[in-house]
């Protein structure tokens, strides 16, 4: 059924590039149709079904709104098993980059240097932008979900690191 796919639930093309405004207004529209408030006087069974649909719409919105989760959803629903628990193999270049960032974080922490944190923060932001560009190309242009899956796993590491950095930044 069409509504079971997150993209078709919102009437959006199944692709990585996203029109955020279109997603937002489509989410509001779907939410308005299925929200339990629409069925406040219905039976318990009906309310339960409405609640499940509303929860699904909210979860679909949450996942499509976030670029990493969106890429993950596209890969996984396209039949790619990301094996996030078991497969930790990474491209050597990415591993090197990771180690470099870790060292930069250690140094910034030791030196309590706001500048060093800011430099690292900029690097992470740039890396995210680059990820977005690469994944748009892999998913939307080449349709290469297998390679996209590998990039998604790298992005998950990047994301974890980014959050760690956020927590440790002294001005935050």
């Amino acid at each position, binding site marked *: *059924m*069409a*509504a079971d796919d997150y993209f078709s*639930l919102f*009437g959006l093309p199944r692709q990585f590039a996203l029109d955020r405004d279109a997603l937002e*207004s*489509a989410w*509001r*529209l*779907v*939410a*308005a*149709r*299925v*929200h*339990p*408030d*629409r*069925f*406040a*006087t*219905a*039976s*318990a*069974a*009906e309310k*339960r*079904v*409405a*609640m*499940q*649909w*509303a*929860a*699904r719409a*909210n*979860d679909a*919105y*949450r996942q499509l709104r976030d670029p990493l989760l969106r890429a993950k959803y596209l890969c996984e629903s396209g039949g790619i098993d990301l094996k996030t628990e078991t497969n930790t193999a990474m491209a050597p270049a990415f591993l090197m980059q990771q180690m470099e960032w870790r060292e930069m974080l250690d140094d910034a922490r030791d030196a309590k240097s706001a500048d060093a944190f800011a430099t690292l923060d900029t690097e992470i932001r740039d890396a995210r932008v680059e990820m977005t560009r690469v994944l748009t190309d892999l998913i939307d242009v080449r349709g290469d979900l297998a390679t996209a899956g590998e990039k998604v796993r790298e992005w998950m590491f990047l994301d974890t690191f980014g959050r760690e950095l956020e927590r440790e930044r002294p001005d935050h």
Partner: protein
Amino acid sequence: MALLQISEPGDSPAPHERKLAVGIDLGTTHSLVAAVRSSVPEILNDAEGRALLPSVVRYLDSDARIVGYEAAQAQATDPSNTVVSVKRFMGRTFDDVKAEGLPYEFVDAPGMVRLRTVRGDLSPIEVSAHILQALRERAESVLGDDLVGAVITVPAYFDDAQRQATRDAARLAGMNVLRLLNEPTAAAIAYGLDHASEGVYAVYDLGGGTFDVSILRLTQGVFEVIATGGDTALGGDDFDTLIVQAVCATAGVALDTLSREHHRALRVAARVAREALSDADSAVVEAELGEGTIVSAALSRTDFERLAQPLLEKTLDRARQTLRDAGLKPADVKGVVMVGGATRMPIVQRVVGDLFGTTPLTDLNPDEVVALGAALQANLLAGNRAPGEDWLLLDVTPLSLGLETMGGLVERVIPRNSTIPVARAQEFTTFKDGQSAMSIHVLQGERDLVTACRSLARFELRDIPPMVAGAARIRVTFQVDADGLLNVTAREESTGVEAAVTVKPSYGLSDDEVATMLADSVSQADSDAVARMLREQQVEARQLVESVGAALAKDADLLNADERQAIDAALADATAAQSAEDVDVVRAAVKALSDSTELFAERRMDRSIRSALAGRKLDELA
């Protein structure tokens, strides 16, 4: 309630029929009830024309109780039997409340604290139900008919225990709860619809005992809460406590040597003085503490504002944190709505205005705005909306929900500020070979340590088939409904063996307890009430029989032969029983038919939603 009346999503079921529904603001210091009458929300006053009902219940020796003003007058003379600010005890344990140093005799009880009165040990749920009953009677006498339901407001920052307790109190008061609505969201509805605004708004809600701050985005009839924060133990009461402490210090009176009566008298005097300081530059706190001892202290507004500063700073910190959670800066906020009687203090308006760089909106009465918004929502939910008048609320969870994992740490399953309803699942596995049970501990809060979060429920998943460690796949699903109430299920999935448990957190009243308490209250009622109940059941049975018949005519293809047979049998029984003179017979037939058609109702609903979604157009908002 008829089971199978499905209308197109977004349409009201019976537009010609107006159903009475009210909004109730169940406050710490006072409560209000409001309803939409001739398309305008208005507060329903008591017989003396007063809008507010002090949230005070006095229990008497006899079987009687007094709620409201008269009860409030007795609080200094009969403090143990006169319960004020009961909202502060909702969903709280003995240990939670005894630290507050309030003049009551608290009794430890499983789940929730009890208050010792002449009428026995009462749960805060029962006391709240007595306040709600008074409001319900007021509403029914003003509106001249029975209510179909009520929207009850709760602080946005209420946790699951406090919400469950509020819902139980309403059920105990014999009310059908259409929705638990967050207070700031209710205020936003009242303001937003009034001003036809669009953009980002903040609601600063400082009530008698609770503080909330919510950031909302208003777009095309959608009220979307982006983030919410607060403190359920910070309100006007706490400012009074500061005054009491200051007065005692000046007068050389040791607070802990005061009797309950004198402590209450001093608190009342402090509150009167604080309220006077909203208009005057100085006030006198005066109370008689025993024979001839009169404490009298002058308090200037400047003195008071200095005392109040740390509490105000606490609220501003919360507001800043909530803005950060929303990913916004103060300048992004177009307006700040002030809610709660405590925002009448000029210093509050000043500091909030400074933080957001805008003059706070105060044109609706801060005591009434929550009840008015709740009335609007109740009217909408009851299906009374006028053509073209429609809106949708998208609220969030105030606190993160998670599970205990190894080492006393909390694994977050649903982060705070998730839009509700929300369902999220997490997989866990076994730790030992052949492990046949797993204990699941549900927690709420923002800290990483189990001991720093509120424990909501513990349960065990048993009968896990024997497997090597790490092979089982236990899927734990958290679901938060539109009322913000949590439900947890667990299931072992790898072998296809289903061992599922559903827990509702256990601090409230069980369904059986509520049923017993309600039955007790009905058995004392007069025969009119019994006759009315029979008529209502008969009507319900007839409606249900009709709607099941109509549903079968339309969607019988959703049922297999066996399912169809079971429904036909229940339908025949209900048809035979619908005119019976014994209320229990009719009720049993209605229940049997409801139960047997539950799956059918779910499938029809699913079909109806799917077709509504397939037929949507992007340029129309339902």
